[in-house]
């Protein structure tokens, strides 16, 4: 397949565009999908190409329009619904958890709900307590939902297409900081497998597991760990529900050590699930630890918010602790791996 560099939002845009081109029943809906900013570029050109009957700006009625999406899916429409921040989806939890997730089960297979709900997680530039939460574990807790959380442009496109083609309600997480990251993406219409993680790099000493933007941090952590002759195996989960237990178990069985890096809060979260999978499936002593966002709301000011998140240095430091290595001046030495409050130097805000 012919590949070229695209950024994450271009990849999502291309995935949606190609799916709409192939299937007339695919529609896009959400506040601002046709506005000048086009959801960080992810809905660019769609209304021009597919018109007002397939790309819908909506009233500010999140709860109702999630219901509209469910209802439309019962009428042979495949809606892609987008919220510019996860937090707005909290207004729709009745429709997502009570209705979409259970519809197929509670009518015992008579009608399914094929919808994609895109949830964008904010970060940095003072987003604050209600614009930067990663709440993926809330959704991953619910049987009947699938929760997808890619980290690369390739997977953003491949999993977006897979989500649109899936017969179930899909919660599709996008970290705002990923939108401007580049990677090779095939031009063709292709899909990645929902429920399958990806081993980003093979290693023997410890397994590092993450999803979404935290995958980038563990890739950077590996660069630091090289200086200490530690060779980690890196797993990008890509899907949170169903979670790829097999790959995790196999890797940890081999390395004997695990650090689960959580994109959200640690307690009752995705990393807790990963540690449980290992604990329940491996019959030998495993040294394991989890790290994630500090156990507080995320404040606006960068002087505090920057400390909320794990980064390559804090991740590498945790790994070193598991190897009883206590290096000094990690932050000074590896400062280039510590992000500030913007994803890249070109970012000028405001969201």
């Amino acid at each position, binding site marked *: 397949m012919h590949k070229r560099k695209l950024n994450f939002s271009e990849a999502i845009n291309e995935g949606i565009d190609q799916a709409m081109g192939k299937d007339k029943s695919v529609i896009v809906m959400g506040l601002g999908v046709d506005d000048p900013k086009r959801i960080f570029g992810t809905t660019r050109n769609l209304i021009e190409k597919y018109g007002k009957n397939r790309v819908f700006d909506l009233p500010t*009625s999140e709860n109702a329009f999630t*219901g509209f999406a*469910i*209802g439309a899916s*019962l*009428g042979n429409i495949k809606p892609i619904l987008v919220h510019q921040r996860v937090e707005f989806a909290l207004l729709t939890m*009745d429709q997502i958890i*009570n209705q979409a997730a259970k*519809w197929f089960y509670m009518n*015992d297979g008579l009608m399914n709900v094929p919808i994609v709900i895109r949830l964008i997680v904010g970060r940095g530039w003072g987003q604050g307590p209600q614009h930067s939460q990663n709440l993926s574990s809330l959704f991953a807790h619910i049987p009947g939902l699938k929760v997808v959380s890619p980290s690369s442009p390739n997977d953003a496109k491949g999993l977006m297409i897979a989500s649109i083609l899936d017969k179930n309600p899909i919660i599709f997480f996008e970290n705002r900081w990923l939108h401007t990251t580049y990677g090779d993406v095939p031009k063709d219409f292709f899909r990645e497998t929902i429920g399958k993680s990806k081993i980003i790099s093979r290693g023997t000493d410890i397994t590092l597991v993450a999803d979404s933007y935290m995958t980038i941090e563990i890739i950077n952590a590996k660069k630091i760990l090289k200086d200490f002759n530690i060779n980690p195996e890196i797993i990008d989960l890509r899907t949170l529900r169903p979670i790829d237990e097999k790959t995790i178990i196999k890797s940890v069985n081999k390395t004997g050590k695990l650090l689960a890096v959580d994109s959200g809060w640690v307690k009752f979260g995705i990393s807790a699930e990963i540690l449980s999978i290992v604990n329940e499936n491996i019959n030998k002593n495993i040294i394991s630890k989890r790290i994630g966002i500090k156990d507080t709301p995320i404040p606006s000011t960068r002087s505090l918010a920057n400390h909320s998140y794990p980064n390559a240095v804090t991740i590498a430091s945790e790994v070193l602790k598991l190897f009883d290595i206590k290096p000094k001046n990690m932050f000074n030495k590896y400062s280039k791996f510590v992000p500030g409050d913007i994803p890249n130097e070109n970012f000028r805000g405001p969201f």
Partner: protein
Amino acid sequence: MKVKKKILLELYFDMLRMRSVETRIAQEYSKQEMRCPVHLSVGQEAIACGISKNLQKKDKVFSAHRSHYHYLAKGGNLNSMIAELFGKESGCAGGKGGSMHLIDLKAGLFAAVPIVGSTIPIGVGLAWANKINNKKDLVVIYFGEGSTEEGVFYESINFAGIHDLNILFVCENNLYSVYSGLGNRQAKKRNLVSISKSMGISATKLNGNNIETVFIESNKIINNIKTTNKPHLLELSTYRHLEHCGPFNDDKLNYREQKEINYWLKKCPLKNFEKLLLNKKIINDQTINKYIKKIDNELNQAFNKARSDKFPNKNKLFTNVYA
């Protein structure tokens, strides 16, 4: 509009049948075989019966927790409904839904759910899909007046109005949300018809206990929706004779005034219609008894079948979580 004798008899039979189903469920409930909450609709027969008489099979109906009549009036299969209440595999939802999740796609009863107001946007979404797909089918969404206190109701009628969707919103106003009367919930001067109109939805309020009124007026309204492709809201006043949830009368709890109860019992849609048909000699006791016998037979069969049908195998717990 004068309603033909044949139709009047059918309306009577349908109401009598629906009432008999609920009464039988109430009678049998104490045997503890139907182990799911039931929200019986006794006293509210005229609404579903009168409206459904004007619907075609392809028209779709959404309902809420008190859904038995909406299901039956739309032609939902009785055996599947009773089996669902018994939790049997032959139930309309394989026993996974219970009384609060009745469904019969063949009959066009699309869904019922107990979260107040929750099916309103889903019904609107289906009507929206119909519009996108150039289909003219009508969507009927039933809900109680409690639903009109939910934000999602306003969000939904707003959208239906903006997009000119073929929807009949039916508000069954029985004055109570569980034990809470209207006084604690709505301003005295609140007027759903004018609220709807101010949001661009035409609306009408009718006596929901008069089957002829409901039948004749909903006929006009439904025809109008189908020709103009614009939604309409119909508010119907009515009263539930039994407790909010369960087989009994709970008026000993004194949450409704005896005067009010007496007033509404006098307005019983079934008894009054029966009296009217007897007075006009459209029906006689002999025919009524014939109807009762026929319905009893049907109910005996449905209950016997539900009783003897199998429970789902335990592996069914895990089926149909995902499509």
